[in-house]
């Protein structure tokens, strides 16, 4: 697991140094970038921590950078630094998952608090991702046939209905179900339904979930 780092993206050297110093004094590890493009080319998909972004960067504007990060699978919380007249942009940023937007001039304590919140959110998100990853690897052990049975079962159908639907005997369905329970490490239908929900599988519309999501 890579260490948690505050990524400071700002083209103003004075501000960059000041923020780095402040964050270091508060015990955060930082890395600085003078442009959005520089940051994009340096960031790894599994990076952890958070990003502090000035919304006016000379090459890419902060919101565009956020979209670019999303397409690269980077899901770090972003703290936007904005000027006073830029609230609508910031609202958009929040809707896309920014943890905070701070209006310049930014109070040092507010910045540190926002960074702490972002770090906590990233930790929680990564824990959730790890859990989901584990669930997914269990789910991926199912054979195509077992998956078909699984989707019918979580849709609430009875063994008999599933057997009729798939044109196999009810006894075979029971064997599939036992195998599915063992592979998914669940002990009941209720547990299995919760696992499906955690994986984001909609039983009414199973096509919404694809394995490479």
């Amino acid at each position, binding site marked *: 697991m890579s260490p948690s780092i505050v990524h400071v993206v700002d083209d103003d050297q*004075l501000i960059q140094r000041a923020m780095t110093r*402040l964050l*270091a*004094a508060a015990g955060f590890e930082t890395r600085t970038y003078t442009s959005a493009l520089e940051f994009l080319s340096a960031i790894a998909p599994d990076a952890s921590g958070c990003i502090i972004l000035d919304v*006016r960067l000379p090459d890419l504007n902060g919101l565009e950078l956020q979209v670019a990060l999303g397409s690269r699978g980077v899901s770090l919380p972003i703290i936007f630094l904005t*000027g006073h007249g830029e609230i609508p942009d910031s609202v958009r940023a929040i809707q896309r998952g920014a943890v905070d937007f701070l209006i*310049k001039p930014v109070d*040092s*304590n507010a910045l540190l608090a926002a960074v702490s919140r972002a770090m906590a959110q990233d930790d929680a998100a990564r824990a959730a991702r790890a859990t989901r990853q584990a669930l997914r690897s269990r789910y991926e052990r199912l054979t195509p046939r077992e998956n078909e049975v699984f989707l019918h079962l979580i849709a609430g159908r009875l063994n008999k209905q599933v057997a009729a639907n798939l044109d196999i005997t009810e006894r075979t369905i029971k064997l599939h179900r036992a195998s599915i329970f063992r592979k998914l490490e669940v002990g009941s239908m209720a547990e299995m339904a919760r696992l499906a929900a955690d994986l984001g599988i909609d039983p009414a519309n199973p096509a919404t979930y694809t394995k490479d999501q």
Partner: protein
Amino acid sequence: MPSNVRIVLALAALCVTAVCDRAYAQVRTPQTVLTIHQGAETFPANPIIDAGIEEALKSRPDVPIDYFTEYLESDRFPEEAASRAFEEYLRGKYRGHKIDVVIATTDSGLGFVLDHRAELFPDAAIVYSGLGVISDTARNVGAGIAGIRIGVAYAETLQQALAQNPSAERVFVVANSVTPQTQELIRERFREYSSKAALAFIDEPTLPGLLAAVKEVPSRSVILYQGHQQDDPGHSMYADEIAPLVVAAARVPVYGTSDFFIGSGVVGGVVRDTRETGTRLGAIALRILTGTRAQDIPIEGTRVVPIFDWRAMQKWGISENQLPPGSIVQFRGPSLWRDYRRQVLGVAGALVLQSLLIAGLLYQRRARRRAEHASRRNLALAADADRRSTMSALTGSIAHELSQPLNAILHNAQAGEMLVKSNRATLEMLREILSDIRDADVRATQIIERHRTMLRNHQMEKKPLDIHAVVRESLAFVEHDTKAKQVQVDVELPSESCVVAGDRVLLQQVLVNLMMNAMEAMADTPVERRRVTVRSELGKANVAVSVRDYGSGLPANIDGKVFEPFVTTKSNGIGIGLTIARTIVEAHRGQLQAHNNPDGGATFVLTLQCADRP
């Protein structure tokens, strides 16, 4: 945040206090000047000469001076006793005071000062005015002596008296206060006139005696009033109070040898300006206080001026062309009107007619000038207003720009505080923090200063300046805005400077205006095409600065009228900015032109004459 700001402010306040303390420490303690006048405080010359001295001493507010005056009344009291009492009085009064300069306004005063110098003024330099001559050896003793030699222009006054009264055969000199030596001096000076007139002294001890003698002066004479000392107990009168009595008693013209007598009825005289003597004494004292050695200041004579009383001239039929060159005529009366009404009316009528004619001829010229002046003033007012509105459009970016250095200061201060609290601060870290705080403060100051010049009212003032520097300064104004509007700015300036005669603020105004127009023209342009190109091309005798955008271009219907007032493509503009810009450029004898580019957008070109290129 407020606590951090307070820390920064407290630090700044400490620095300021330290600087002030040092400045105060440099202020010198006042030096002391004492003037010894002769006679009572009310003696006519004393307040005048004293005012002159004070005026000169106060001319240098940076030289603090304690100024005192004392009056040696040896004229009214037995000299030796008065002198002794005065000495005791001064000794008691100024005990513990170091006196730096003593000014003696008369010979008696100087005598007193020199007699008691060792006890009373051991450290003081002496400045005097008087008839006496001080030898160079005497001048070098102690802190030295400097001064002004007063000459009484007896001969010059007499010469005027005889020239203006050619029939005069005798001169009567009223001078009972004058010493035998002075009388001898007067006789000596008069010797060359002895062929023209005989000299006699009226030396009566009492006022009635004097006036009786004056009454007896026969016609074909003039009287030279040198002064009369009257210390009859209970009837003490100063010489200038006696002057009008002498004039009233005399049947012949009276001339005076002091400026105090002018106005009392004497015809005039070649006299010195008492007040000027005062200011010169003060100026000499000041030179000594500011470091010149007294003995190094040459002793100069007083300046004398011929001054005459217009009324007395009328009475004795003396015309102005009988006066010497440079004469001052005082008390001109209104009798011209009374005596020459018809001639005055005629001349005045002619003058009025002539003036009317001239006024008529000048009318158009004046009207044109006034119009020109008004239009210049209107341009300045309009330019001020336009600049203000441009600046107010940039206010948002001022706030943004300022927030950067302010935030840097705040974060640095907070980081410093945290490091110090947790004992992790090294000297090197704190030094870097302080250095960054200072840099940020300098930047904030520059931002404020830049905008302040643009917001001030401004009168056009052409100076040689590098147009490329002006372009770069103008770019700094809009830099923040270009980022906010995601406009890429390409700057193509030759490395060599180009000097033009221009007004920095007004040319910046034009360029900022063009750049902001360029950005606004691209509001609907896709981000990747939002570019402003600012370039400069040097010609043989001129320089062309162009601002090009990739926006919508100038609409065909207003293409040719873009510089006319109230023509605008902006929904929120009134269309005056470019009109003012062109007027400013034309006031620089330059040109401002606009055209659409073949590949989209518009280009504005500012052409100015180069001053002699290096």
